[in-house]
C-alpha cells in the first residue's frame, strides 16, 4: 500500500455564497443536515486509510476547530499520525482563485518535512464527494507519476468559471491543462479537474522551496508551467462530485440530497461520512407534524409542516408553520404560523410567529446567522 499523508485546504472564503461564508471558510459551511462541507474530504481521506491529515485553515479558525475538536470523531486522535492544524497565511477570508496556495504550505513546512511518506494527497475542502483514494494512489504508483490529478468526467460542473479541463493521451498522461478563464470555445472537454491530486512529497517540497518566495502562487499553476518536464497523469473518479461555489450550487446540491439514489451513493455506501457527534436526543414529531420528502437531523422538535426541505440538528418548528423547499441550519427556532419558502437559514436564526420568508428557486433567500425576524 503506497503510504500517503493528506492535506485539505479549508481556508478559502467566498464572496459568492451570500453570507453563508461570511465569518467562516466555505469548508465550514453546514451541509446535508448534520455535516460541514469539509467532512466529506476529511472522511474520504480517513476512509482511504490516510491517517495523517493536515488541514490548512484560515487565520481565524475558531468555527472550524469548534467542529473538529481534536479529530476524535474522524478517528484522527491518534499516536501514529492524526490531524494537524496548519494555519494559513492569508488574513481575512477574501475569496480568491488560489485553491492550493504554496505560501500556505511553506508556512507549515514542518508538517511535510517531518513525515516519511512518499506521497501527499491534496484536496480542496469546499466540495462534496465520497471517494476512496486507494485506487488513485495505486495508479499513481504504477505510472510512477510525479503528480496525478483526479478529474470528473461530465458535461459541466455547474458554475464553471473556476474549472480546469484536462487533456490526456491514451495512457492518461496529461498533455494540457486548460484553465476555464482562458478557454475559447474551441476547447471543449469533459475531464474536469476535481481539485484533488496526488503528488510526490519530495516534488512538493522542491516546488515550495523554489516558488514560495515569488508570492502567492497556486500549486496547479506551477504544475501547468512545468508540464513538459513533469510526469503528470490524470485519473477519473466516479464519486458524486459537487464543488460548492455559489448559493445556487449550495441550494441545488442540497435539494439533490432528497433523491434516494443520490443519498445511497453519497453516504450509505461502505465508506461513511463522519462528523462531530453531539449526543442529541432523537427528533420528536408532535401530533401536528406533517412532513414529506425531507431530510431531518436529530434533536429537532417538529410540530408544523415541512416539505422538500433539509432540517439540521436541534431545530424547533412550531405548530402552524409551513416550511417548503428550504434549508434550516442548526438551532433555528421557527415560531408558530411562520412561512418559509425557498430560503436558507443560517444557524441560530429565530423567525417569529406569522412571518413570511420567501425566496425563489433561482434566487433562494439567505438569512444570516443569529438573525431575529
Amino acid at each position, binding site marked *: 500500500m503506497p503510504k500517503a499523508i493528506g492535506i485539505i485546504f479549508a481556508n478559502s472564503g467566498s464572496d459568492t455564497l451570500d453570507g453563508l461564508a461570511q465569518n467562516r471558510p466555505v469548508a465550514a459551511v453546514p451541509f*446535508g*443536515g*448534520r455535516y460541514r462541507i469539509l467532512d466529506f474530504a476529511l472522511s474520504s481521506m480517513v476512509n482511504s486509510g490516510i491517517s495523517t491529515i493536515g488541514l490548512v485553515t484560515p487565520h481565524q479558525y475558531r468555527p472550524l476547530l469548534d467542529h473538529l475538536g481534536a479529530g*476524535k470523531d474522524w478517528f484522527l486522535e491518534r499516536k501514529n499520525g492524526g490531524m494537524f492544524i496548519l494555519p494559513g497565511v492569508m488574513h481575512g477570508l477574501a475569496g480568491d482563485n488560489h485553491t492550493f496556495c504554496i505560501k500556505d504550505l511553506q508556512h507549515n513546512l514542518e508538517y511535510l518535512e517531518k513525515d516519511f511518506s512518499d506521497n501527499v494527497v491534496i484536496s480542496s475542502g469546499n466540495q462534496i464527494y465520497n471517494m476512496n483514494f486507494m485506487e488513485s494512489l495505486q495508479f499513481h504508483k504504477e505510472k510512477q507519476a510525479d503528480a496525478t490529478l483526479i478529474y470528473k468526467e461530465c458535461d459541466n460542473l455547474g458554475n464553471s468559471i473556476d474549472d480546469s479541463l484536462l487533456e490526456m493521451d491514451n495512457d492518461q498522461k496529461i498533455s494540457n491543462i486548460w484553465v476555464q478563464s482562458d478557454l475559447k470555445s474551441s476547447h471543449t472537454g469533459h475531464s474536469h479537474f476535481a481539485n484533488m491530486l496526488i503528488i510526490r512529497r519530495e516534488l512538493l517540497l522542491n516546488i515550495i522551496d523554489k516558488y514560495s518566495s515569488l508570492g502567492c502562487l497556486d500549486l496547479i499553476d506551477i504544475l501547468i508551467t512545468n508540464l513538459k518536464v513533469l510526469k503528470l497523469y490524470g485519473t477519473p473518479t466516479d464519486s458524486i462530485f459537487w464543488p460548492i461555489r455559489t448559493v445556487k450550487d449550495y441550494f441545488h446540491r442540497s435539494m439533490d440530497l*432528497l433523491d*434516494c439514489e443520490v*443519498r445511497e451513493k453519497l*453516504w*450509505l455506501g461502505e465508506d*461513511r*461520512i*463522519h462528523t462531530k*457527534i453531539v*449526543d442529541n*436526543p*432523537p*427528533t*420528536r*414529531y*408532535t*401530533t*401536528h*407534524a*406533517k*412532513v*414529506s*420528502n*425531507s*431530510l*431531518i*437531523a*436529530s434533536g429537532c422538535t417538529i410540530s408544523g409542516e*415541512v416539505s422538500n426541505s*433539509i*432540517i439540521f440538528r436541534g431545530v424547533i418548528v412550531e405548530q402552524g408553520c409551513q416550511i417548503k423547499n428550504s434549508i434550516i441550519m442548526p438551532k433555528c427556532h421557527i415560531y408558530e404560523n411562520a412561512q418559509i419558502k425557498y430560503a436558507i437559514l443560517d444557524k441560530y436564526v429565530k423567525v417569529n410567529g406569522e412571518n413570511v420568508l420567501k425566496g425563489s428557486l433561482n434566487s433562494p433567500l439567505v438569512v444570516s446567522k443569529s438573525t431575529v425576524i
Partner: protein
Amino acid sequence: MKQQECVALLLAGGQGSRLNGLTLNRAKPAVSFCGKYRIIDFSLSNCTYSNINTVGILIQYKPFLLNSYIGLGSAWDLDNPFSGGVHILPPFLGNSEGSWYNGTANAVFQNYEFIDFYNPKYVIILSGDHVYKMDYNLMLKFHKQKNSEITIATIQVPHEEASRFGILTVDEDLRVTDFQEKPPQSESNLASMGVYIFNWATLKQALIEDDADYLSDNDFGKNIIPQQLKQAKRVYAYNFQGYWRDVGTIESYYHANMESLREGHFLNVFDPKFRIFSNEDILPPHFMGSSAKIENSLVCNGCIVHGKVSNSILASGVFVGKGVEIKDSILLPYVKVHKGSMVSKTIVGENAEILSGSIVGVEGESTPDQDGITVIEDRHIIPSGSKIAAGENVYRTR
C-alpha cells in the same frame, strides 16, 4: 495514576429473562431504549456527570454485544487511563480455581483485587439495567454526612407496587431499621434502587463473611444487606427524587419508552442539562418520503420512512416502506418493515424484518397476554402475509 475516592462496580451480568425476546441475544444493559440509547447509557452517563472515573463492569450473560458497545468507554468520557477508566470484568480463572459469578455479591467478591488495585475509600454498586438519572456525588455527600457504612438509594413507589421491590423501613434520621425483599404487605413504600455506597472496608468484610456462608445466595439484596443490618452496621437510606424507570419486564419496558412520547415527559429523558451519552452508529439524518405521515413519534438517525407512523419510536436505521402503518410500537435499530404491513403495539427486535403485507399485533377476541404487547425477537424475519396476534412473543426457530 490518580487516587480515586470512589470506584463504581456496575452489575451487567444478569440474564434479564423477563425481557424475553429482547435479551435472547444480548445482555439486558445492551438493550435499546428510547430509540438511540441503550439501557447501560444511563448508569454510565451518571458516572460521567458524577466524576466517577473508574468503573468496573461485571459481565457474564451474552456479553459480546455489550462489550463491543462499551469499547473503551470513550462515548462516556470514561477512557482516561490516568483516572482509571472503564474495565470489563468477566468471570475468570484464578490460581487454584475459578467459577461463574454466583450472585451479585459473589461477582463483586471475586473482583476484590480490582477494587484493591484502586484502593478507594468508597465503592458504589450500580446495576446496569435500570434507567435513571442521578448525581452519585449527592448520595456520597449524604453517606459522609451520616457517617454511614452502607447507604442504599431508595425511591418511593406506589403502595400497590411495593411487593415487587426490596422495601426499606427507616427512622426519622433515615437510618434503616428493616429491609424486606418483595414483602406481600408493608407499611413503608421506600424501594431499594439497587444502588449502594459502601465504605470499602465494610464491603470487603461483608463479602468475605458472605462468601464463607454456604447457605447464602450471595446476593446484595437478599443476603448482604440483611446480614449487615443484623450486625447493627450503620445503614442509611438516601431518598432519591428524580427520573427513574423500571424496565425489567416487557410491560414496564414498553411503558417507560412510550412515556417519553407524552407531552411534558419528553424532557425527563432528554433534558439537555443532563444529557445521556451514547455510542452512536455513524448514520446520516433520517429521511421522510413524500408519502410519509408521522405524528407523535421519535425518529433516530438513518431512518427512511415512506409510510405512516404514529405514537411510535423508530430507532437508528429503521426502514418503513410504502403503505406501512406503524402504531404504538417500538422499532429497534435497523428494523425493516416492508410494503403494506401493519404493526401495532409491538416491540420489534434489532435487525428484524417484517416482510410485505403482514399484520403484527392483531387484536383478537380474548384478552391478550403481556398487556397486548407483541414482541418479535432480534433478527427474526416475519414472512410475507403473516398475521401475529397481540401479546405473542415471536422467536426465531433454531
